[in-house]
């Protein structure tokens, strides 16, 4: 009989002294070694039997993982060891309201004491709540691998459910979100089975700003969670919002384009068809709210 409370399977906990040692250990023991930070996803997946690593490598002591700083030129950098609650309460995170709203929507307060934004990204779940905000803010991942430091844009990082461009030995140390455009408005609308704390059935990250380079005079970044194998950017919807006079008809067209582009699955949280309709309705709602605030 399966235990109702399975313990964690056996593994060795490894806390490397430095980055070089950590990357080498992870590369030499791939795929049996797995980096972790908060563990809030890793431990659940180990208990469920999805992961069975021989080594869990704790990255929280490594150089560069404890950074949480805002620079008026470089933007906001969030280290891999920084739990979401610290991001939410960091005064300069207020420059990134979409990220703060998304981070506050993750699970519960005590889970966010451990869960990290870098962990959310590295797990590459299509449902990751904070990923859409990091995409909308054009995040850059700062990585240490066996060949030293490198950077990767977040856009294009995800290759499938739970899959990304990281190579054995790569450790994401932090993410840098460039300074966002002045006057932008962000909105994260999360549809869960309950009002607070659930995983998303659909999650809409939307950011809008006045922009004289577009025909509409506005630029929107959209990213949608839980509707495709990877966090999804509805490019056609963004184009519609940039290239047409921004009115109710344009928003309808953009919302419909987003609905047509997503490829959700049926699962325990909702059917594919329901998700598609919710994408249309919630993209419409998010863009309308942002439009109203931008024109106020």
């Amino acid at each position, binding site marked *: 009989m399966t235990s109702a409370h399975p313990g964690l399977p*056996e593994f060795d906990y490894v806390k490397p002294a430095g980055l070089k040692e950590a990357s080498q250990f992870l590369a030499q023991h791939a795929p049996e070694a797995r980096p972790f930070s908060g563990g*809030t996803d890793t431990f659940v997946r180990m208990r469920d039997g999805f992961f069975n690593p021989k080594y869990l490598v704790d990255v929280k002591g490594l150089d560069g993982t404890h950074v949480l700083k805002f620079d008026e030129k470089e933007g906001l950098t969030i280290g891999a060891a920084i739990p979401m609650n610290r991001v939410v309460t960091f005064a300069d995170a207020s420059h990134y309201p979409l990220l703060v709203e998304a981070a506050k929507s993750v699970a519960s*307060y*005590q*889970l966010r004491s*451990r869960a990290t934004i870098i962990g959310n990204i590295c797990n590459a779940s299509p449902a990751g709540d904070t990923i859409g905000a990091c995409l909308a803010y054009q995040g850059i991942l700062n990585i240490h691998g066996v060949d030293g430091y490198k950077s990767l844009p977040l856009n294009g990082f995800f290759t499938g459910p739970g899959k990304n461009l990281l190579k054995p030995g790569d450790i994401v140390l932090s993410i840098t979100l460039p300074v966002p455009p002045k006057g932008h408005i962000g909105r994260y609308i999360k549809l869960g089975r309950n009002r*607070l704390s659930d995983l998303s059935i659909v999650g809409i990250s939307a950011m809008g700003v006045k922009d004289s380079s577009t025909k509409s005079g506005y630029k929107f970044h959209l990213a949608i969670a839980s509707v495709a194998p990877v966090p999804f950017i509805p490019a056609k919807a963004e184009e519609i919002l940039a290239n047409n006079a921004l009115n109710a008809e344009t928003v309808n067209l953009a919302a419909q384009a987003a609905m047509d582009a997503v490829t959700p699955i049926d699962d325990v949280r909702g059917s594919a068809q329901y998700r598609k309709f919710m994408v249309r309705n919630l993209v419409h709602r998010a863009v309308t709210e942002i439009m109203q605030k931008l024109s106020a």
Partner: protein
Amino acid sequence: MGFHQISVKVNGNDEVVTVSSNMTLLRMLRESLALTGTKNGCAAGECGACTVMLNGEPVNSCMVLAVEVDGQEITTIEGLAKDGQLDIVQKTIIEKGGVQCGFCTPGMLISARALLNRNPHPTEEQVVEALVGNLCRCTGYSRIIESVQAAAERS
């Protein structure tokens, strides 16, 4: 599998414990230190029955490895009362009838105390948000929320 000797302060007491790599903080508290007030509910970070404070912040102790708390400070439900006096939120949850079966109560009280520490006068919405990770199948929550609000009013 590796074993590690860790030093940890639990409810103000210095403890030295030998833990296996895969031992959670929850198991260490219950099985190595006999602090069984902290409950094992879902073991997946969802129900909050195992909530304890790690350096003053509430965490799901089922989602923390014991080896990770080397050198840290833990407060469990057994450490909430001071000098033989119940914490104010322990008193108000009794007065308001916010306890029925009691299984969620230790985690609920730790989350409530952590909330009041960071926000001594929370709104009802802030209480709800702070307790959303603590599931109760008996009370319907209203009396628990009232207990936290009453504790805030009296402190």
